[in-house]
C-alpha cells in the first residue's frame, strides 16, 4: 500500500512474482503501476502491508536487495555529464564492481543494446530509443536477478520497440526475472507470462494473457461500421447477437465466439454495414472492458 498524504496511489495489492517469470503490471495512467515499481525497487517505503523482495525486507535490507536488482525507470535518468560508456562504467562502480570488470561489462552491454558505435558520445544527442536502450543496459550492469522495467518502450518508434522486446526476451531466456509495467497490450502479450490489470490502485484482474482474454472477452470481435451519422439506431437490432454489444461513436463491436457466423447473421437481419472486420480478441479488449473507455489523466 502506498499513500501520499490523502491520496492513496496503491490501495492494497496482492501479487507474487515467481523467480524466472516475466510479470506485468497493466493499467491506465495513474493506476499505481509506477508507485508499485518504486516500492519493489526499494526506493519508496510502503505505507502499509507486507513486501518481501528476494525474501528480504526492503526497508531494512535496501542496499542488499538493490545490489541484486536492475531498474529501468519510466523517465530516463542517465548522467548527462558522462559519455554513453561512462554511464555504464560509473554506474557499475556504484555496485562496487571492479574497474576492469566494469569496462568489460560495459563493452558487452553496449554490444547487447547495439550502442557500441556511440560509446564515446554524450547522452544528450542520443535519440529516445537509444537512451532507452542505454538505460536498459545500465539496469543490467550488476547482472541482476530481477529486472524492473517501468514502461520500457513508451515513446519509442516501432523499430526501437521491437529491438527492446527482442533483448528483453533474450534476458528472459537467460533466466532473469522480469517485472514490467506497460499500457501497451501487444507488449504485455509478447513478454508477460502472467500479469495483473490495475486500476485506481487496485488489481482488477490477474492471469496469463491468454487466460485473461478467455475470462474477460470472447474469442473473436466483429467491428461493424455503418454509413450513418449515429451508430446507435443499429445497435438495438443487434441485441442478442453474441455475448456483448458495445456501441462506440464510430463503430459497433460484437463480442462473439465465431466472427464469421456473426457476420452472416448480421446479413440475415437485413443490415448492411459499410465496413466489417472480424478479428481475434486481444488484451486490449480485456483492458478496455475492465478499466473503461473514459480518459484518465
Amino acid at each position, binding site marked *: 500500500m502506498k499513500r*501520499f498524504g490523502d491520496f492513496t496511489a496503491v490501495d492494497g495489492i496482492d501479487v507474487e512474482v515467481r523467480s524466472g517469470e516475466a510479470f506485468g503490471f497493466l493499467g491506465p495512467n495513474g493506476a499505481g503501476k509506477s508507485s508499485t515499481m*518504486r516500492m519493489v*525497487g526499494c*526506493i*519508496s*517505503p510502503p505505507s502499509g502491508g507486507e513486501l518481501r523482495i528476494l525474501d528480504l525486507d526492503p526497508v531494512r535490507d*535496501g*542496499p*542488499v536487495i*538493490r*545490489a541484486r*536488482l536492475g*531498474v529501468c*525507470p519510466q*523517465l530516463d*535518468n*542517465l*548522467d*548527462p*555529464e*558522462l559519455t554513453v560508456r*561512462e554511464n555504464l*562504467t*560509473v*554506474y557499475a*562502480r*556504484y*555496485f*562496487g564492481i571492479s574497474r576492469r570488470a566494469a569496462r568489460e561489462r560495459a563493452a558487452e552491454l553496449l554490444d547487447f543494446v547495439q550502442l557500441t558505435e556511440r560509446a564515446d558520445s554524450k547522452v544528450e544527442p542520443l535519440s529516445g530509443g537509444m537512451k532507452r536502450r542505454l538505460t536498459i543496459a*545500465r539496469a543490467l550492469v*550488476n547482472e541482476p536477478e530481477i529486472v524492473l522495467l517501468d514502461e520500457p518502450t513508451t515513446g519509442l518508434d516501432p523499430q526501437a520497440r521491437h529491438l527492446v522486446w527482442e533483448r528483453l526476451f533474450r534476458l528472459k531466456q537467460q533466466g532473469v526475472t522480469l517485472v514490467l509495467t506497460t499500457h501497451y497490450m501487444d507488449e504485455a502479450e509478447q513478454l508477460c507470462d502472467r500479469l495483473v490489470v490495475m486500476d485506481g490502485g487496485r488489481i482488477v484482474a490477474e492471469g496469463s494473457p491468454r487466460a485473461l482474454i478467455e475470462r474477460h472477452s470472447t474469442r473473436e470481435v466483429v467491428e461493424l461500421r455503418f454509413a450513418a451519422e449515429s451508430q446507435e439506431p443499429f445497435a438495438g437490432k443487434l441485441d442478442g447477437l453474441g455475448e456483448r454489444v458495445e456501441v462506440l461513436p464510430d463503430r459497433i463491436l460484437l463480442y462473439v465466439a465465431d466472427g464469421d457466423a456473426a457476420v452472416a447473421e448480421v446479413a440475415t437481419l437485413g443490415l448492411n454495414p459499410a465496413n466489417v472486420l472480424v478479428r481475434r480478441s486481444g488484451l486490449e479488449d480485456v483492458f478496455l472492458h475492465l478499466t473503461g473507455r473514459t480518459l484518465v489523466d
Partner: protein
Amino acid sequence: MVTLILPRLVDVSAASRRSASVVERNVAALKSVYWLLLLSGFVEPLLYLFSIGVGVGTLVGDLPLPDGRLVSYAAFVAPAMLASSAMTGALAETTFNFFGKMKYMKLYDGVIATPVRPFEIALGELGWAMLRGSAYSAAFLGVMIALDLTTVPRALTALPAAVLVGFAFGALGMALSTFMRSWQDFDLMGSAQFTLFLFSGTFVPAQAYPTLLHWLVEVTPLYRSVHLIRGVALGVDGWSWLLDVLYLLAMMALGLLVASRRMGRLLYR
C-alpha cells in the same frame, strides 16, 4: 563479540567504498570547462589579498593582535581570505552544483536505485567538494609563504584547518540546498555569504564593533573559521582554537545529518 562488531565494520567499509564511487563519478565528469571554474576560485581570494590586504594595507599600517604583537595588515587579512576561500570553494560545489545534480539532472534518482544510500551520496559529494577546496587552500598558502605572510610549518598546520573549514561549510551548504525550491533561493544564500565575508573579522578585528554586534559576529561560522586559521597562521598561543575546531566539527556533523535526512525524504518518495 566478533559477530556483533564485524558486520558493522564491513558496513562501514562498504559505505565508504560507495561514497568513493560518488567521488569517482565526479572525476569522470570533470571536463575542460570546469578547469576555468576551478581557476576562478583560486584567483578571487588573491585579488582581495592584493587589493585590500596589500593595497589598503599601506594606508592602514600595522595592527595589534590580542596578545599585543603587531602584524602587517596583509598578514592580518591573508588568513581570513584563506578561510573565506575555503568556505566559497566548498559552498560552490555543495550548493549550486549539488542542487543542479539533485533537482535538474535527477542524478541521484539513478544512484539510489543502486546500493548507494543518501548519506553515502552526501559524504561522497562533500569529499569531492573538499578535494577542490583543499587545492585552493594549498595554492593560497603557497602564495602566503611566498609573500612572507606566514611560515612553512604554520602553513602546514593551517592546511588541515582550512580543510576542516571547507568540510563544515560544505556540509552546511548541502543541508541548506535540500531546502531550496529554485535557483532564486540561492540569491539569498549569496547575500548571506557575502555578509559573512565582510563582517567575520575578515578586514577589521571583531573587537572594533559595538559589544552586541561583536558577540553576534563571534558566533557566526566564518568568524570561528577566520579565528582558527588566523591563530594558526600567525602563531597565536593558547587553546582558543579548540573551541573553533569543536564548533566546525559540530557544524559538519549536523550539516551531513540534515542533508542526508532531507535527501532521503526527497528521493525515497
